[in-house]
């Protein structure tokens, strides 16, 4: 790899002659030196190099920031941490800020492990030329990945121990006689003997591997991590200084606009370039297979040209009726079948059960619907490309963009710039391809921001589901068998490194989505995993003699059939986990009501995991849960009825415990549901930032409420019809919002787990159960619109 060509273009950056000369003298042609966009890097410090670069890079004289460029999944300390002569600690992470507070939390982690003040930490995130390849920032995996005994946290601990060892040699005292304060190591018995981090390693590499045995600072010692450090980015955000990807401006940058097909499956027949000839500012009409776009000097010019461009398309392939869509999934062939657990005795156990309960739950396609439509900037010149992208997956995007452009992955650099909250694979990746294709066509940097409609009509929707539940009960009302069978359509998904056709621009440019591989019947599971929460919390989850579930029911079967989706699908905050949990937690509530048991007590009777039991109890206690069966006694059949419901989950089977109590009012005349109060108990191990955690739980709860009550993708026989905020109407700021109370269970001895997707997962179940408690009407299809609530009210006894 030729580093000077690695998108970092030493020659044409904002470098002074001195700086370039210094680089040359140091023989650092393989290092990328960049300024701009806030990203910076300096190769391993070489005497005489750093000083002239200081002003260029905007860092203090003497500060060195070292970073390997080949740091993919690196076990080398220098890939993660560098310490300048001024003692500033710079950390590099492959897990990016998505609006959930991770940037601040990772700064806290580094400050804590290295025992330096928070304001002496710099963090470089998600730049393929600088940061370790940590795959995708998703699935509430950032805390498990970077806050346990590995990766960023381990790098911090390794660095601290290495510094102590070097100080011991320098100061002539054993490590256990040393103390650290604010990046200065001193001898406990002689405070005059000190040495600073800058003196020990400033500007030089550690040249050490990560030490798997390095001892992290125990949470009981924490002074920065574990505290409510305010978000470092908020002051810039509230004053309009923060640079989102939407604000990236590159010299000579042009503006692009894409023209998407009018219907799903429509292909391009002709483009009449004459229709836009002579339009002001128009630079080029770009066509590549079914990808169509325009480039102009200014955004408004591109918008007008795209609107006027005459393109002829074939009719679409036709879409299935939305009204009968869920039913049609059951009979759709072929299927790809997956069995999570199968004790092989479920039919027999249910056959001799004293009582059998059945129900079916329906979940719609939903959108990420980011508040800012997706934006990307690309600068493609010849065989070199630089992208500024809000993708959750910069390293995979680097590879897949290279495929789209037909250039080498080594020649692509992706620089993460935050976008609007994405909640999964929104339009960030696809718009990056859009910008890259248009830039390649004109040989100049191009910025593209999608229209609201182009984003909403073509994004990778959250999964629709049909879920059949069946349970057998013993004579005493205990569940003895649980059987779940689900159908869910899929198409495409995250593009990953090799599947650009998994998102719309890749498809239009000629790439196929990842193949749908039929598989039926499902092979027997070989180990227990519950990443998608398809396995209900109440079963034992036994596979091959090992039981990984959180419950006690031994007779268990969980089978999912994936079928081909007419629309792109992809991860949307709590993908599958939310839909499955809605079904499990509604069904558990139905069974409890059937046997006239209290919904909390009945859950506890079937749970085995002590931490899940604890969050259920904590939420119920905080909500002052009244122990009695649902629905509530003496309820009214008209007017406003009030009720409460509970729902719980161990997210992904191992990544965050959460229980929620919802209290609702149901207007039985209009069918309108108002959520009055949400009480959330959460356990994600040791808490990094309690206020950040609360912010995530509150936002997750309300986003979950919005999805439970309001959100649904709609379509006609040709195209998606929910294409703006009138046709896809989520929760606005004027809406009634519940009081939200959070109970944080802080387990200092446990591993760090995710917390970004727990509350959103349990909201629909808790709200649906509260509607039942209030009214006696069970609602089994989300969203719980007034029409559906009215229909459910009409069928109650």
């Amino acid at each position, binding site marked *: 790899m030729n580093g000077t060509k690695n998108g970092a273009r030493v020659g044409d950056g904002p470098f002074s002659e001195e700086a370039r000369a210094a680089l040359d003298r140091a023989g650092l042609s393989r290092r990328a030196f960049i300024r701009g966009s806030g990203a910076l890097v300096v190769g391993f410090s070489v005497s005489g190099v750093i000083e002239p670069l200081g002003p260029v890079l905007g860092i203090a004289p003497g500060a060195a920031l070292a970073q390997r460029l080949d740091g993919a999944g690196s076990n080398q300390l220098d890939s993660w941490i560098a310490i300048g002569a001024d003692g500033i600690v710079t950390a590099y992470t492959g897990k990016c800020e998505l609006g959930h507070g991770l940037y601040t939390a990772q700064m806290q982690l580094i400050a804590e492990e290295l025992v330096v003040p928070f304001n002496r930490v710099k963090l470089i995130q998600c730049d393929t030329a600088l940061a370790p390849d940590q795959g995708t920032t998703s699935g509430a995996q950032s805390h498990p990945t970077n806050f346990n005994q590995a990766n960023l946290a381990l790098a911090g601990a390794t660095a601290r121990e290495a510094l102590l060892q070097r100080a011991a040699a320098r100061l002539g005292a054993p490590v256990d006689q040393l103390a650290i304060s604010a990046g200065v190591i001193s001898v406990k018995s002689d405070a005059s003997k000190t040495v600073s981090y800058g003196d020990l390693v400033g500007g030089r590499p550690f040249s050490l591997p990560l030490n798997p045995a390095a001892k992290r600072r125990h949470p009981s010692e924490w002074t920065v991590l574990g505290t409510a450090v305010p978000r470092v980015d908020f*002051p810039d955000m509230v004053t309009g200084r923060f640079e989102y990807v939407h604000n990236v401006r590159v010299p000579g940058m042009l503006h692009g606009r894409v023209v998407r097909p009018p219907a799903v499956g429509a292909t391009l027949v002709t483009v009449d370039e004459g229709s836009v000839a002579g339009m002001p500012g128009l630079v080029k009409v770009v066509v590549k297979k079914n990808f169509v776009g325009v480039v102009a000097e200014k955004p408004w010019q591109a918008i007008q040209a795209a609107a006027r461009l005459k393109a002829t398309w074939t009719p679409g392939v036709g879409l299935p009726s939305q009204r009968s869509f869920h039913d049609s999934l059951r009979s759709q062939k072929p299927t790809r079948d997956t069995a999570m657990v199968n004790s092989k005795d479920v039919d027999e156990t249910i056959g001799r059960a004293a009582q059998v309960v059945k129900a079916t739950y329906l979940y719609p396609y939903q959108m990420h619907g980011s508040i*800012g439509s997706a934006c990307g900037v690309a600068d493609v010149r010849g065989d070199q490309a630089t992208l500024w992208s809000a993708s959750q997956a910069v390293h995979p995007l680097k590879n897949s963009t290279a495929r789209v452009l037909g250039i080498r992955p080594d020649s692509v650099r992706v620089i993460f710039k935050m976008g609007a909250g994405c909640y999964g694979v929104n339009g960030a990746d696809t718009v990056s391809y859009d910008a890259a294709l248009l830039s390649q066509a004109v040989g100049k940097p191009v910025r593209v921001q999608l229209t609201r409609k182009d984003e909403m009509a073509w994004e990778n929707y959250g999964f629709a589901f049909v879920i059949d539940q069946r349970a057998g009960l013993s004579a005493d009302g205990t569940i003895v068998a649980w059987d779940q069978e689900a159908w869910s359509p899929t198409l495409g998904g995250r593009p990953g490194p090799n599947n650009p056709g998994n998102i719309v621009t890749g498809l239009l440019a000629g790439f196929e989505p990842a193949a749908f591989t039929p598989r039926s019947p499902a092979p027997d599971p070989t180990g227990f995993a519950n990443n998608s929460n398809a396995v209900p919390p109440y079963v034992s989850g036994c596979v091959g003699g090992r039981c990984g579930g959180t419950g006690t029911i031994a007779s268990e079967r969980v089978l999912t059939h994936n079928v081909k989706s007419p629309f792109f699908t992809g991860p949307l905050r709590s993908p599958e986990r939310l839909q499955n949990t809605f079904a499990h937690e509604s069904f558990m509530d139905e069974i409890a009501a059937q046997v006239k048991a209290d919904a909390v007590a009945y859950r506890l009777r079937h749970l085995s995991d002590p931490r899940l039991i604890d969050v259920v109890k904590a939420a119920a206690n905080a909500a002052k849960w009244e122990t009695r069966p649902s629905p509530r006694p003496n309820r009214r059949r008209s007017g406003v009825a009030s009720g409460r419901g509970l729902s719980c989950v161990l997210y992904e089977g191992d990544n965050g415990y959460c229980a929620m109590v919802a209290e609702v009012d149901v207007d039985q005349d209009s069918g309108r549901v108002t959520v009055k109060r949400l009480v959330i108990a959460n356990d994600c191990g040791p808490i990094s930032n309690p206020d950040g955690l609360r912010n995530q739980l509150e936002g997750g709860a309300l986003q979950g409420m919005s999805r439970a009550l309001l959100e649904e993708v709609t379509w006609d026989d040709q195209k998606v019809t929910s294409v703006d905020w009138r046709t896809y109407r*989520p929760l*606005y700021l004027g809406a009634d919002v519940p009081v939200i109370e959070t109970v944080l269970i802080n387990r200092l001895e446990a591993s760090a787990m995710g917390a970004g997707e727990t509350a959103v997962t349990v909201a629909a179940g808790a709200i649906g159960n509260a509607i039942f408690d209030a009214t006696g009407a069970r609602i089994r299809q989300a969203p719980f619109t007034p029409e559906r609530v009215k229909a459910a009210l009409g069928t109650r006894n």
Partner: protein
Amino acid sequence: MSVINLRVNGRPHTVDVDPATPLLYVLSDDLELRGPKFGCGLGQCGACTVIVKGQATRSCITTVASVAESDITTLEGLGTVDRPHPIQQAFIAEQAMQCGFCINGVIMTAKAFLDRNPKAADADIRQAMSGVLCRCAANVRMLRAITRYAQEVKA
């Protein structure tokens, strides 16, 4: 194209653009301001809001020609990181956002409303915010921050 004079955050600007250009593009691309955001381009979400002659105005559906010579205030015009406006300070104090992309519309809409209705009740504030969208659903904290600022205004 035509030459249009604008007064943004107290400073005069002259731009030479198609007079039908929505104000948002002039602010974002000609003036390179980062406060007003393109969210929907349809006036449905509030992310592009600026204050024109005291009114919260959706700059994505307002032509630049229609606000020539008017006083336009953007988020940048309220305060700075070092000297934030009290309403900006309230949002920091309450840690009342997540991704922050919508915050421009939230703050500008609330400020314009409270400037004209300093004694507004919570229900009125809620009504004023009913066309503003936060997809991270930080609603509870945002309403708390607005209330905090409103109380300061009253005091």
